[in-house]
């Protein structure tokens, strides 16, 4: 039985459907990457799952509990880390953790233990007593996440947790999320605009667009269904690019050469390597039967747009 089970969930604002008959299930201990363009319905879906807003119709079961009947119990086993920096900038990190911990009903030794865990996970020992409005973007993001861990959630909803942070903090947050999932078996629902992040942390990927889940599958299954071979190469001049793109089925994008798997595949592969040789271009990697999530997402949403026109 899935930990999160959503059936025919619908929600409208002012008669405009925002979620339309959504069906989605998330298995226990997995990381679901939820992808979708702005306004697709991601935040509304998370708001319903966290009990912040009500649904119009459908059934949601979390940990075997019905969201309509036992929202309080469901909320106590979940934690929501919003996209915004949802804490008090004029308080110190410790004061913020203490306040939010107290709202979870923690006190005394238990509160101290949970605060210590969150401070450790957020690697905030050095600045935990400083006012948050003096923090860098990365430190604030780590605190935002740390607050979400105070109640030892079985399910962690992360809404764009790395927006506006430097590479170091971003990597730290992604590693932490992976660690929480591996070591504590925390089930994570993760939304992000960064495809590489979703690709890095997720086991399952769901794509939501215009309030509908248009795809939900295991990450590997999505990425393996490729229709091209990807060759990652070094520096390429304009002459080489032009020479490659003369061949039908060959495309150059962001330093990667995509060769379509069609009847010209072998001919195009030979031609491509000839161009690399002639122009002294080094080949860094060849990815067979795999595509990047970004390519896939863009292709998927473009097709939908085209279909609807």
């Amino acid at each position: 039985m899935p930990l999160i089970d959503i059936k025919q969930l619908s929600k409208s604002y002012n008669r405009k459907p925002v979620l339309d008959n959504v069906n989605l299930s998330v298995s226990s201990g997995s990381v679901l990457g939820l992808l979708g363009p702005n306004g697709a319905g991601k935040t509304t879906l998370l708001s319903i799952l966290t009990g912040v807003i009500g649904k119009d119709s459908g059934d949601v079961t979390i940990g075997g509990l019905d969201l309509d009947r036992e929202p309080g119990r469901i909320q106590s086993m979940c934690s929501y880390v919003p996209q915004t920096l949802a804490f008090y900038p004029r308080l110190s990190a410790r004061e913020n953790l203490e306040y939010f911990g107290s709202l979870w009903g923690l006190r005394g030794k238990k509160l101290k233990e949970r605060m210590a865990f969150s401070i450790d996970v957020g690697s905030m020992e050095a600045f935990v007593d400083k006012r948050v409005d003096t923090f860098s973007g990365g430190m604030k993001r780590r605190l935002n996440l740390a607050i979400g861990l105070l109640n030892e959630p079985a399910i962690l909803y992360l809404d764009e947790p790395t927006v506006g942070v430097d590479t170091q903090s971003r990597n730290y947050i992604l590693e932490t999320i992976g660690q929480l999932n591996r070591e504590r078996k925390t089930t994570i629902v993760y939304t992000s605009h960064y495809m590489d992040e979703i690709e890095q942390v997720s086991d399952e990927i769901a794509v939501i667009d215009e309030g509908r889940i248009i795809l939900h599958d295991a990450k590997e299954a999505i990425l393996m269904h490729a229709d091209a071979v990807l060759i990652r190469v070094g520096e390429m001049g304009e002459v080489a690019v032009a020479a490659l793109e003369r061949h039908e089925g060959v495309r150059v994008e962001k330093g990667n050469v995509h060769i379509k798997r069609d009847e010209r595949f072998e001919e195009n592969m030979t031609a491509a390597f000839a161009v690399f040789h002639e122009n002294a271009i080094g080949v860094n990697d060849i990815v067979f039967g795999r595509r990047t999530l970004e390519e896939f997402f863009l292709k998927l949403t473009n097709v939908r747009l085209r279909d609807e026109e």
Partner: protein
Amino acid sequence: MGGMIKLLYTLKKEFLLITRDIHAVTVLFVMPAVFIMIMSLAMRDLFELHSSVTIDVLAVNRDAGKNAEAFVKAIEALPTFKFHRLEKDTTTERIRDRMLAGDYKFALIVREGLSAFVEGGGGGRGEKPLELLVNPSVTVQTQMVLRGALEAKLAGMRRDAFVDRLGGVLEAAGVDKTALKGDDGSPVEVRYAYREGRAFKVPSAVQQSVPAWLVFSMFFIVIPISNTFISERGQGTLMRLESMNVSRISLIVGKMVPYLFINAIQVLIMIAIGIHVVPLFGGTALTLGSSPGGLVLIAAAVSFSAIALALLIASLARTTEQATTIGAVLNIIFGALGGIMVPTFVMPRFMQELANLSPMAWGLEGFLDIFLRNGGAADVLPESLALLLLGGVMVALTVIILRRQTEV
């Protein structure tokens, strides 16, 4: 138990947020303290019997008679006014120039013929032996005070002269002349009216200004409330709290209770300033009245209403700038209308009726009942109920607005 601990942590959080917000501290504590000090000291002599205010008056005596000289000497003994004598041949133009250049409020010209006027002679009923030049900045009330004093002195002198003229007749009739002349003291006894006739202190400026500026500053709770509330909403903290099984009602109560405490601290500090600090600067100490219960009731009602208004404004406004501007403007209008800046009893009738629209007027009347009229809890009950009812309506509106905002 769990709820109480959550409330204590919420209180701690709100106190930390306020004490670290310099604008909030200034508006809630510094501004009213300064206003109370300034207004208590500036208006001290308007309310107290031992007046130390003196108004400078230029005086020219153009009458050489002894009655005129006696009149000038008599008015020089008046309290409040200080007369500066000029030469008898000083022209009216010169007097006017000196008055305006030296910032004198009045110039009194004793015309030739005053002595004859006192003796009952002179040029008939239309004769005016005194001329009063008035600086345009002087209020009609102050003008009336000087006019009244001059008229009383002159009338007294005319009465005494008349009695003297009848001297022989009165003696023959066995009437005591001195009894007819009377004395210079006022025949009017002034007594203040207090609730149920209880003895109380003479009203002073501090008794008037502490309640007025206390009510005003309590309504300025809109600044810190809207700052934290709108930040919480904008930064997603409200959504986070709602996802933590904290209900909307709990959120509002959790916001109201700490600010009730903060308003209570305001009340205590402003009263302490009235009692202990104002006297250090020469003002009269505040007296609390005899009803702590009444004071708590009206303070709690004003606080509830002020916090409810702040929450309503914060829930309607999109930004903190919007909320603080709307809140501040509304407070100033309520204050001006409600008798904070200008007492309602000096307003024209239609303005006094308009003043009833301001919740600050209700709160102020309640505090004045306690501080000035020595009233009790029963006396402040109507104002308190009105404030609590208004607060309840505003809280209900806030809940409805927040629910709609979450759903949209």
